[in-house]
Every structure is written in structure tokens, then in C-alpha cells.
């Protein structure tokens, strides 16, 4: 269980998060949604100690700021939004970095396994810098996966923190990656993802926190969060939640004519 209480972050004197409460359970995909500048990424950065915050973040009851880096690395992997690499490393070398931080004693064949999972089988020898943005994003995901390969370790559930994991992917790979994350949660791991795409969120999230102006408007299951009024309030435009013809997965369409 990840629990963030009363998180406050100011960047250059401007309050970005103003007392955010957020929690995520292992076994679930928890997404953070909200408009640009609402503090989604800042919340993720606070929970991964990339931004200095006031408040408390605990992982299974332990304050994360007191855990040493190597212990955290064994339990939690973080996918950044976009990554540039300083030197001409190959895909294999990048993914292998995840392996060196892993608590598991795994063979280097794990690298190929991870690449296969993100749909990049055979990319081991390619230069990272020469890949497209979407391919680079999936290489990073493979690296993060090798770091916490088994969803449950000796020390408890393992966690994936992802900042817009599908932002530069085409629709096929979006579904592939989201299914992979859902499977990770299904197997007992924790998944926390900042998401832009409300429809993918509707399809895959078990729990949604919606942010606006540095506060959590509501956190709960999709049925409670993906409502016309809440989304319209958060995003400042009229949207309507619809139901897909099959199943009860909601989908959201913006209604151009009624932008206020």
C-alpha cells in the first residue's frame, strides 16, 4: 500500500500541490488524471522524491524518505516521461541497467525477455539514440520492468511508477503496454500511472485520482470519478461520458459546441 498524506509542493514560490491525499493498493492500476498544470507529474515526482515536498509518503507503512536508495530500487521502479541518453549506448546496455538494480539474481536473458514483452524483440544491438520516440519509451519501460520483474518479492509488493507511459505510442502499442501494466497489477504488483488519455484510463484503471489546481477532486473507482460533472469541472470544458456498445466500459467524447 502506498499512502501519500498532505503533500505540498511549491516550485519557484508557486504552490503546485496544496495538500494532496493519495493512496494506491497493490493489485490495482491506479491512474492520476487531470488537466495540464494540475500537478499530476509533480505528485508523481514528489512520491518518487524527485521534487522536495512537505507531507508524508509511506510504502507499506515505511516512510520512503527514510529508506536507503538501493532498498527502494529493489521495490520500486520509475519510468520518466522522456529520456535522452548521454552516450551511444545500445538498447541491451540500457535495459541491462534495470537488471543491475534488481533485487533478483537474474540472467542477462531477462533483457531479451523484457524487450519481447514491450514488442521490441531483436532490438538488443540497436543504438538507443537512433530509435523513434515511441521505441525509446518502450526501451525505458523494458528497463523499468527488469528492475522489478516479479510483481511480488520477498519484501512485499513491487511497484511501477509511470509518467505518461503511452504518451508517444501508437494505438496498438498503447493497448499492448496498458495490458502489460494491468497484468502486472493482476499478478499482485502495484501500478501508478500519470495518464492523459481518459479512454485508456477508463479501460484499464481500477482506481482513479483526478486532480485540478493542485488538489485531488476525487479518488475512487472509474464509476465514481468518470462522471460528466466531475470531468467538466476538472477540465473546464463540457464532456460527456458515454457507454460503449458492448460491456460497461465508459468512453469520453468532448462536445465542441458547448465549450464554456
Amino acid at each position, binding site marked *: 500500500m502506498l499512502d501519500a498524506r498532505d503533500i505540498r509542493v511549491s516550485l519557484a514560490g508557486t504552490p503546485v500541490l496544496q495538500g494532496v491525499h493519495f493512496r494506491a493498493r497493490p493489485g490495482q492500476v491506479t491512474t492520476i488524471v487531470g488537466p495540464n498544470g494540475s500537478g499530476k507529474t509533480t505528485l508523481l515526482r514528489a512520491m518518487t522524491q524527485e521534487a522536495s515536498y512537505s507531507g508524508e509518503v509511506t510504502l507499506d507503512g515505511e516512510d520512503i524518505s527514510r529508506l536507503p536508495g538501493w532498498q*527502494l530500487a529493489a521495490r520500486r521502479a520509475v519510468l520518466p516521461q522522456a*529520456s535522452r541518453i548521454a552516450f*551511444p*549506448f545500445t538498447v541491451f546496455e540500457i535495459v541491462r*541497467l534495470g537488471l543491475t538494480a534488481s533485487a533478483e539474481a537474474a540472467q542477462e536473458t531477462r533483457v531479451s525477455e523484457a524487450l519481447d514483452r514491450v514488442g521490441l524483440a531483436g532490438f538488443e544491438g540497436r543504438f538507443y539514440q537512433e530509435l523513434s520516440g515511441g521505441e525509446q519509451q518502450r526501451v525505458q519501460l523494458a528497463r523499468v520492468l527488469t528492475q522489478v520483474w516479479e510483481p511480488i518479492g520477498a519484501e512485499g509488493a513491487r511497484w511501477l511508477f509511470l509518467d505518461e507511459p503511452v504518451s508517444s505510442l501508437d494505438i496498438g502499442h498503447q493497448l499492448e503496454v496498458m495490458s502489460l501494466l494491468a497484468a502486472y497489477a493482476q499478478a499482485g504488483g502495484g501500478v501508478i500511472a500519470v495518464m492523459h488519455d481518459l479512454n485508456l484510463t477508463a479501460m484499464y484503471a481500477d482506481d482513479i485520482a483526478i486532480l485540478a489546481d493542485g488538489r485531488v477532486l476525487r479518488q475512487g473507482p472509474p464509476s465514481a470519478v468518470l462522471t460528466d460533472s466531475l470531468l467538466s469541472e476538472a477540465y473546464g470544458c463540457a464532456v460527456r461520458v458515454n457507454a460503449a456498445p458492448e460491456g460497461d466500459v465508459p468512453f469520453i467524447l468532448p462536445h465542441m459546441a458547448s465549450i464554456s
Partner: protein
Amino acid sequence: MLVLSGLLVLTSVASLTTGASGASLWKALTQLVQGEEISLRERVILFDIRLPRLIMGILVGAALAVSGAVMQGLFRNPLADPGLVGVGAGAGLGAISAIVLGSFLPLGMQASLGYFMVPAAAFVGGWVSTIVLYRIATHRGRTSVAVMLLGGIALGALTGALSGILIYMADDSQLRDLTFWGLGSLAGATWDKIWLAAPLIMLALAATPFLARSLNALALGEAPAAHLGIPVQRMKNISILSVAAAVGAAVAASGGIGFIGIVVPHLLRLLIGPDHRFLLPNAALLGAVLLLAADMISRTIIAPAELPIGIVTATLGGPFFLWILLRNRSLLDL
């Protein structure tokens, strides 16, 4: 790595047997290996002139090349070099201050510092300029590459100006000492200097294998490296301290020798890739080989006179560096 080790042995032997004296030292060396007596003159040339020079060349070459590789990894920039970012200039300023201002210190202090004064001042100078530059370029825990390079130029100009003032104040014998710093040479290598420089350089080089994995992770950026469990701030401190120690000692011992720190890591990345676990030890070997080779050129090209080695490395290294840049523009991604 094996190839490079072999190459180092070859250049070492070649370095021992080439020189201005023109003596057939190859014969002397084989006699020595076979356990035969050699003349006193040959013994002096071999053990008191050539051997310290050889060892100093290996130490300085390894120190400069490894420092370059570590700096580039730390700054995440293939252009970082102890010379380009002002560490060398800072160490030079320290050494110049010691030479020119050392005589103003109380005699007792001069005596107790003795030989240690110039290398210690070079060490402190290099260390201070590294720290200052790092502080300037780091804002909110993020080191800006552009600020680092521009700051290095500004800092280099400032230390250059201070050095200029000191040179202006210097007397004739001090000026002769100072010229030595500017151009760099292994000619002054003595056992005394080796005993001073070697421990610092060896200590710094011994620390670098522990940095290899961290430097690899740092290529992803500081935050991702931290998420991989790397104690980023600690490894930064170790890196900076090691580089300052190695470069400070190298500059103190042999003056400003440029381009080894930038050409060697580049060449190796082209040959064996950027993985620091292999890059750092190979950089030590190739740095030593190239510096010995440059030293042989500097000793023989205008024999019996000597061309300062800094001129040789800059003449060969400058065009070579440009060639690398032009060839790999797409991979640099600044």
C-alpha cells in the same frame, strides 16, 4: 584490453630505449635482462632518467584519460575534459601561485612543505575550480551542460588572468619554471616527483572502478540513476575528488598536457562502446600508451633538443578531435 596491455609493454620498452643520448640502450637492456653487468652511464640513463620518465608518462597518461572519461560521464557530455572545464587551468594557477608566491611564505613553512608545495597547490587549485564550476552549473540538483561549458570558459579566463598577473610578477628563474607548466613535459620526471604524484593518482584511479556502474546509470539522467539505487550525490563527490586529485597531481608533475583526456575516451567509445566498466580501465591503458608515444615523438623529432609534449598532443589531438566530431555529429546529440 589484452591488446592494449601488450601495446603498453611495447611502448614502454620502446620508450626506455629511445632518446637523445643515442646510446644503444636496447643492447644494455637485453644485457640487463640476461643478468649481465652494464656500464654506469647506461645504468644512470636507464634508471635515473628513462625509467622515472616512463613511469611518470604512464601515470600521467592514465590519470588524464581516466579523468576525462569520468568527467564526461559525470557531466553527461562527451565534450567535458579536465582541460576544457577549467580543472587544468585551476591546477595550473595553483602551481604558478606556489612557484611565484611560495617565496613569500615564512622560511620554516617553505622548508616543511618543500617538494610538496607545488603539487599540493596544484591539487587544491584543481579541486577548488572543479567545485566552483560544479556549483555554478548545478541548480536545484540539476547540472546544466550549457552553463557548465560557458562557466568553464569564464572560469578559465579568470584563472588565466590571475596566472597572467603572477607571471608578470615573476623573476627570471621563476619564469623558466612557469614556461614548463604552460607547455607540459615529462622531462622533469624524477623519483621524488613520482613518490609525490603516484599515491594521489593511484588512489584516484583505484576509486574509479567503483564509479563505473554509477556512471553508466547516470547516462540516463540523475533522477533515473537515483531510482536505480545509485547514491548520486556521493558518487558525484567521489568523482570530483578523484578527478581533482588525479589531474592536480598530473599537472603538478608534468604541466598542462591537453587532449589526452578527450581523445582517449572518444576513441575507445568508438572501438568498444560507452560502457564505463570497460571504458575506464581501457582509458588508463590507452592514455598511457598515447602519452608515451607522444613523449617519444617529442624527444626524437628535433633531437637532441626536446619539443614540449603539450605541443605534440595538441598538434595531433586537435585535428583528430575535429575529425571525430565531424564523423559522429549524429550520435553526439548535445
